């Protein structure tokens, strides 16, 4: 299901590929083609380091369809060291140890699965650095 949809965002989800604005040099993630800082076209690929810190977080108990077996899990807004914010799950950490400001780094993990015979979707999560 939805193979093409996952395939076309592989670069972002596997490698944190965003963009760099050729005009103001601002770093952009997720990619959006118009620079949010200077409103000019920005399509130059840029690979983020995957380093950042927790800006906010929450552990959720009621998961949406496709994520039920992982609940409870912890999600966060991570402020990347290059500037942009990314929304992701935290992993390899006890929920009670997570703090705002905690340094984290990107890892690649299974995000969801569509049943026993369905597709596995991989992507970025963040763990303590």
């Amino acid at each position: 299901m939805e193979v093409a949809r996952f395939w076309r965002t592989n670069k972002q989800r596997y490698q944190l590929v965003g963009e760099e604005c050729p005009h103001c040099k601002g770093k952009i993630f997720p990619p959006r083609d118009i620079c949010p800082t200077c409103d000019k076209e920005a399509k130059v690929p840029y690979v983020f380091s995957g380093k950042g810190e927790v800006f906010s977080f929450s552990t959720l108990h009621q998961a949406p369809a496709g994520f039920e077996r992982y609940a409870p899990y912890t999600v966060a807004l991570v402020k990347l060291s290059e500037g942009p914010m990314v929304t992701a799950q935290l992993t390899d950490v006890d929920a009670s140890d997570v703090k705002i400001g905690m340094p984290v780094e990107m890892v690649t993990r299974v995000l969801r699965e569509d049943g026993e015979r369905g597709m596995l979707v991989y992507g970025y999560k963040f763990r303590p650095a």
Partner: protein
Amino acid sequence: MRDVSIIGIGQTIVGEHWDKSLRELGYYALAAALKDAKLARVDALYVGNAHSGALSNQENVGAMIADFAGLRGVEALKIEAAGASAAAAMRLGYIAVAGGLCDFVACVGVEKMTDQQPSTQESALAMSADGDYEAMQGLTTVSLNALLMRRYMHEYGYTKADFAPFAVNAHANAINNPFAMYRMNISPKQFAEAKPLADPISMFDSSPVADGAACVILAPSALAKEFTDRPVRVRASAVATDTVGLHDRRDLLSLDGAAWSAQKAFAAAGVNPSDIDLFELHDGFTIMSALSLEAAGFAARGKGVDLALNGEIRLGGRIPITTMGGMKARGNPAGASGLYQIVEAVQQLRGEAGANQVANARLAMTQNIGGSGATVVTSILERI
């Protein structure tokens, strides 16, 4: 542009309507509003709805409600803007009447949510977030609001208990609303001990999933007095948008879309926040109430919770909010809620709010938000 008034209102009780379908709920609210306006037919029907596809396997809802209501052949469209769908439908109606394209327009908000399991509801609600970069990561509407609330508490030094007045006030007001879902008081202690959904958000921070429908009939103000003794004038109708993803916000704790939408509305009406007698805001979560009060100019940055703690949001306070129970206690049938807000504001301006009547209410403001601040519809209504 023509001046526009509301000449009729209708609503169903908000709740778990096991015995009623999407089309029935929509029709009941429409029929009640037509009766209130002493009108048999309208020139157009605009239906706000957010989740009929995901939760009822039904699209083409404009035609469906028109057909079920016996309005053969009428212009009818569905408008989707997540949790702001209903107010967006009213915005479209306003454009049609103000622009002189239609004289009588019915704006319905309808939502049928409780047929489905919680995980299916969560997935449907999460469609109002960024599908590729929020929902894909397993985020839900509740957890996105939790990220806002955690950061708000961190930056301004509030505790979770400080948010209690929003829920306590909403429940106290719902007791006197016969259309509300939860007509009972809650205590600050119950608020503090409620089941966590996505910390720091617990059950009493969050508005309940529900079924319901609400409707208003719009007409040119010049004709309004022929249909009602108490028309309510639409002084402003404004829409603004912000980034869908929270991670893309310029400033996480500033709802820019809500601020722009409110500023447009104030400018159109030629009034200031201090002129507003009551504010039906978007209290899907307690944190949304705080951020909305700040964005609309009723509280300074970081002071929305203070305003509630000081009792200023209650009936008789400086700016009463959720005067008939709000989304928290009247219930939150997502794509219908914006028109419940409008209907309740009209009740206040007609002097029909019973025990919850805001004394001498002349100007009411409503603000309906889709997603975590992405689509924001603000209306300012006036007693004539």
